[in-house]
């Protein structure tokens, strides 16, 4: 699976152990909420970057206070039609001020990228034969946005008012 981060093809430094029975002893690792809650002390002392993977039925709200421990949050799209993670992404960015990597995982497709970019995702496990081309295509689709979201793109309303 190709990983795109900040608009470039990237090598994934993390091992996703969220579905594994055992968490690897060393290296950056992504864990599930359940693993985090059960093995919190051990995870905090291993001294590697940590990632947290949320299923689409897991809101970030209950773990908001723990976010400073994580360099990465991965939000799952079990089906591209399941849009809950768009709300979670905005909460993470705009309400909980999460500044780490926000990664879209699961059924992540070109035609959804635009929405993901706007809600605060900056990394994508993109299902595509040519992920970089798809990423650029999605970026180029629109130059006008109506909704203020945390990505900072100025909305049509703001532009009408001279950028305010």
């Amino acid at each position: 699976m190709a990983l795109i981060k900040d608009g470039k093809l990237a090598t994934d430094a993390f091992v996703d152990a969220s579905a594994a029975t055992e968490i690897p002893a060393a290296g950056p690792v992504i864990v599930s909420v359940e693993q985090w809650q059960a093995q919190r002390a051990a995870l905090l002392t291993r001294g590697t970057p940590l990632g947290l993977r949320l299923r689409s039925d897991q809101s970030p709200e209950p773990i908001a206070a723990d976010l400073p421990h994580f360099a990465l949050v991965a939000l799952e799209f079990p089906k591209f039609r399941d849009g809950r993670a768009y709300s979670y992404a905005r909460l993470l960015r705009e309400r909980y001020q999460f500044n780490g990597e926000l990664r879209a995982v699961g059924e992540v497709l070109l035609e959804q990228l635009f929405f993901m970019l706007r809600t605060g995702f900056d990394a994508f496990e993109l299902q595509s034969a040519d992920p970089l081309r798809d990423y650029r295509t999605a970026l180029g689709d629109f130059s006008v946005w109506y909704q203020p979201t945390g990505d900072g793109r100025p909305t049509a309303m703001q532009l009408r008012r001279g950028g305010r």
Partner: protein
Amino acid sequence: MYRYDEFDARFVNERVAQFRRQVKRRLAGELTEDQFRPLRLMNGLYLQLHAYMLRVNVPYGTLSSKQMRKFAHIARTYDRNFGHFTTRQNIQYNWIKLEETPDILQHLADVEVTAIQSSGNCVRNITADQYAGRAKDELADPRVYCEVLRQYSFLHPEFSYLPRKFKIAVTGSPNDRAAVAVHDIGLRMHKNQQGEIGFEVLVGGGLGRTPYIGQTIRKWLAPEHLLSYVEAILRVYNMLGRRDNIHKARIKIIVNQMGIDKYRELVDKEWEATKDGALKVPEEEIRRINAYFAPPQYERLGDATDLLQRQRAADRAFDRWARGNVVEHKVPGYAIVNVSLKAPGKAPGDITADKMDAVADLADRYSFGEIRVSHRQNLVLVDVKQADLHALWRELTALELATPNLGLLSDIICCPGLDFCSLANARSIPIAQDISQAFTDLDELQKIGQFTINISGCMNACGHHHVGHIGILGVDKRGEEFFQLTLGGSSDQHASLGDRLGPGLPQADVPAAIRKIVDTYLVIRQHNERFLDTYRRVGIEPFKGAVYGSETQAA
């Protein structure tokens, strides 16, 4: 009316280009049908029984003559010379080719019309009172808020993959002509003692297989908070709405499962965090948009009372039409004219390309070039000089668009049904045709008085059958079509859901059953009470007895 500025225009053109690519990818096999389906739906394109159907928005029911001519052009060039106006203030084309759709959308974009989010699990076309800005009973024009919501909802990055579709309607009048209580969000305008406008917010209304009347989640919302409050409702719904069962995914289900108080608590908590942020609607944006809805340059006229009296006395047919299809305007000397798309024997809401052009011409000559579309599937010319009414009536009569039946029994709401729709269980159009042909006597229609018959070809309820005074629902029983009647529904400010009358009837028996219900009503009504009021007074039993006989009545 609203005109696109450079941003709006660029946006819709970019949207067309994007869809052109998506169609190309689908045709090249780069997208599966499963992946393509939500994309085409969000551009208004359904796959129906015989062909693709394209549903085009008429935002808050307001249309220019130029846009109507474009509708005619599309009907002629890409369809079979007609279109169908729906209960959502949309127009639908029934015989569309997938590969031609991007061109059609470009034609529409050229006249500032879109099919964006006319379908899909997202915020749909925002609907409003068809008399908005002209009605005498109105507090303020709701369309400015509809337009704010329209822009806000288009390609909302957070809410384009909601659990299910989401419909918003706005009324600026205490007499609700927009059916706001049967929408996911209904906005009802009020005025406070300071003379300021605010909204009562209803949530969780809707029809379909589990109908509910919306409940008030907030009694007063200042317009500057409109977007933040709607966003809070949508966010709670997006996160908590059911995604495991399509039939339980609408917001009405969770609102009614957890109760309105709990839902309100969640929304308020969310709203507290965002209400003073970037979603605040600035005064100057309201003013900017409102300027587009400024009334046309009316002449200073007095009411043409004497003239109309003479004309009506001289011509019985004109008198009937003027009484039925013409509505009071807030400006002296002007009138609101309803153009009936309910001629006897015709499919309700259908109109040919030639008649679309003709209506556009009439709008130009008599009504400042503006046309409205009502959720009851009629058209409206909202700014007609009273002195022109007679001349306009003659022209409408020649076009068979002057059936004087507005709000009467043959002004039937009807979905496309099994003649077109892949969801339908039964053919609804023939039922509408049969009923309208059984009730052609204009004196009789007048005597029966205010009456709504709403027909849906399946429980998805596009024909709003639950809120018809008589509702008719097509069902499939072992391969045969039957029609279930409900009585006592209403979609106005006193909205109610109809009660089931009894077992379904075969198509052939429906007009006779309607006849029996009407006859019973005429016998037991007091003074000039409407059918709905009689029903609310006496209940279902007399009607049950009339339709099914005394056995069923006893059982």
